């Protein structure tokens, strides 16, 4: 049997010779990820495409054929040109290059997704861990509050909030986050409740480790794996929700390039100028799809006992 973790010291001269752990249990998660990349082709392809999308977003000012079209530039004399040599994706109703707009749209969508997930996790996970670990009345109060937010469907809550706030990227982030964090709180609470009864928490309590330290060092790190998996799975959902919000006109506003907004503005032109809807729409689909595929892959990678369900 080969040792898959060469960095480790040679087997200790421990007096017991019980069966060594199986190789699957050895090695770090990075190693498992690499192994997965070979094994889980879809997730790998998803990750590569996503990387391309991220690169396109980050490098849009340099890669896009008409960088100005990503924000303020307009070309009223070149409107609704079909896809072709000059404009691969065609132009929109004010003459902007759609390829450029779609690339800049990736910036918006990815920013929103990252911000929403960060905010949601930062709010939800600590609350959930506190609720799950503390239990009792604290848990009841926190979980009932999350229930209230959960009963508000994310999109409707976002709609309600976006009407209140000045529509824009920032308010879209806030609106979606408000509907999103309870999921993390709930998940973290369930996980933390489970961890609370694990032996190492009891051991820490018996050692006299403080509550805060137990939550921070023992409960939180162990509650994080499902959260990380969920984050990657949710990225697609956030992209879809933010696109839906923009489609309803409640998200980022002109001249921000945003896929949902582009679909909404183009939908009446779908019959005559299909490209105005098709390209931003497909961009949403592709991004969400890749995130979902990658998320599934990560789940089976980081959650080994569910490997079969891959």
């Amino acid at each position: 049997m080969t040792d898959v973790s060469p960095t480790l010291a040679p087997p200790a001269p421990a007096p017991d010779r019980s069966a060594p752990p199986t190789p699957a249990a050895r090695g770090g998660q990075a190693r498992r990820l690499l192994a997965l990349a070979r094994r889980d082709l879809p997730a790998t392809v998803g990750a590569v495409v996503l990387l391309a999308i991220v690169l396109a977003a980050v490098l849009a000012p340099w890669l896009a054929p008409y960088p100005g079209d990503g924000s303020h530039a307009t070309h009223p004399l070149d409107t609704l040109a079909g896809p072709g040599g000059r404009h691969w994706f065609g132009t929109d109703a004010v003459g902007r290059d759609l390829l450029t707009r779609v690339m800049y749209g990736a910036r918006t969508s990815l920013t929103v997704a990252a911000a929403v997930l960060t905010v949601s996790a930062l709010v939800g996970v600590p609350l959930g861990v506190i609720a799950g670990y503390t239990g009792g009345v604290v848990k009841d109060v926190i979980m009932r509050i999350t229930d209230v937010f959960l009963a508000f469907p994310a999109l409707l809550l976002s709609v309600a909030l976006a009407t209140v706030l000045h529509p824009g990227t920032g308010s879209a982030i806030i609106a979606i986050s408000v509907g999103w964090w309870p999921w993390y709180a709930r998940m973290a609470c369930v996980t933390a409740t489970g961890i609370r009864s694990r032996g190492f928490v009891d051991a820490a309590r018996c050692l006299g480790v403080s509550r805060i330290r137990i939550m921070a060092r023992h409960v939180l790190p162990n509650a994080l794996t499902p959260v990380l998996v969920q984050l990657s799975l949710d990225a697609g959902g956030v992209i879809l929700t933010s696109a839906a919000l923009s489609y309803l006109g409640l998200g980022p506003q002109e001249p921000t390039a945003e896929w949902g907004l582009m679909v909404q503005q183009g939908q009446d032109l779908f019959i005559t100028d299909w490209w105005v809807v098709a390209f931003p729409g497909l961009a949403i689909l592709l991004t969400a799809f890749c995130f979902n595929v990658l998320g599934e892959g990560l789940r089976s990678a980081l959650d080994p006992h569910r490997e079969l369900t891959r």
Partner: protein
Amino acid sequence: MARRLRLPALAAALAACVASVAGCASGTPPATTALTPTFTYSYPLDVITDWDPATSYSNELVALQNVYESLTRYDPGTGTVKPQLATSWSSTAGGLTWTFHLREGVRFHDGNPVTAQAAKAAIARTIAAQGGAAYIWGAVSSIDTPDPHTLVFHLSYAAPMDVIASSDYGAYVYDTAPPGVKPGALKSWLEAAHDTGTGPYTVADWNQGQEAEVTLDAFPGYWGGWSGRHYRQVVFDHTPDVTTAWQTLETGDVDFRSQLNPELFKEATHFRALGTQATASLQNLIAFFNTAAGPLTDVRLRQAVQNAVDYDGLLAALHGSVGPAQGLIPSGLPGNDPALTRHQNLPLARKLLAEAGYGPGGRHLNLSLTYAQGDDAQQLFVTLLSSDLQALNITVDARPMQWNAQWAQAKATDPAHRQDILLMYWYADYASAYSWFVNLFHSAQPVSFNLSYLDDPVVDKEIDAIPQLTATDPAAERANYALLQRQLLEQDAAAAPLFVNTYQRVYASGITGYRDNPAYPDVVFVHDLEPSP
């Protein structure tokens, strides 16, 4: 027009969902109409918001103009007023007294005869209701009925009563005492989809919230008669989605659509089964600059923005759905002046900005702008304007808003909370340029529609003089318009007219006799149409 159409429902809608049409249109329509039963009109908005002809001030005119009639009707082709319920009229005493002679033998749909007394009662009721467009009768101090077919208006100040009487809203002549309806119950009776008009059609059915919202039946006793080919029934389909509208046009399920979009309109011109008609409307989009507070109090900045607007680009991008703004007054109305057409002048804009210390290399300027949410043309303009101004080191903070919110902000008590630029469509209630001046640029406290907040006593005085001139001296009136427009648009630079909407109608090519009358926006006078045999 859109100023009203885009407002949320202005008057009470009805509680009853399914209205029966007892008592109306009981006669059989003439046999000649039997061949072509139904004219179907596809309309993007809810048709009915108010059934009461006194207060109606919204979308329902497309139906009500076929049900009710006014004393006169405006003809944009000639720029004159034509007889309708009144056969002739005259004014005396410098436009302070107007006498209308009513058509004889006309009956309301409820069977009552149309008399001067009935007409007076209707107008009096409209004035008393104080809703909708009742203000058009503002000049009227009293009404006389010397005989059953003569109606005399006494005015407190000179006003063009013949034009006012042709107004698309508030000028209906209707029966205020239909048989079997208690005097106090008229409004609720009307709200149950009843009518007391004199027009060629009468309300048959109303299903609020449904696709086929309103059905009108021919009124057999119509004074205009039914000889020749006419439609026996009119159905108004509420179809917000242009894709749906397009498909129903293609399949022949509808005969007329008020507005698609420029691309589909172009597509329709290639279809033999479809007729198209593009007509310049009397509705224009105006950008109002805040002359009272904020950076645009500096007239040079207002002028700079005016010159930065790419008027021709806007026209090109809107693909024929709008025409050029020739000053404040749309073509088709007295006072329109093609010489006032503007073009982009970036060097001048840059120079003006530099003088004020802004522009490229100067200070950065932030302008807040509000416009109507969901309006594609406004959205497009805002995008283009932002683009042009960005190049001039000016950032536009544009907010699409519901009209109510937009208007509330515009009227904020603290001027600092008001926007710098506001977009609004304007359309006259009756065919006169006066409406633009008095509503938009006459000082008013509290703020109403004077959204550039101009407070210039000289301008006010000039505006106040217009009605008198309209009624007495049309030439002087035009001179006054020219003077005012130069003052407002060039010296004060209080606003920038951006474009005039073009109505792009699509209809079944078998129909003959259709001519768009922009004075009655979106209205099809169905009785005038001749269906294909």
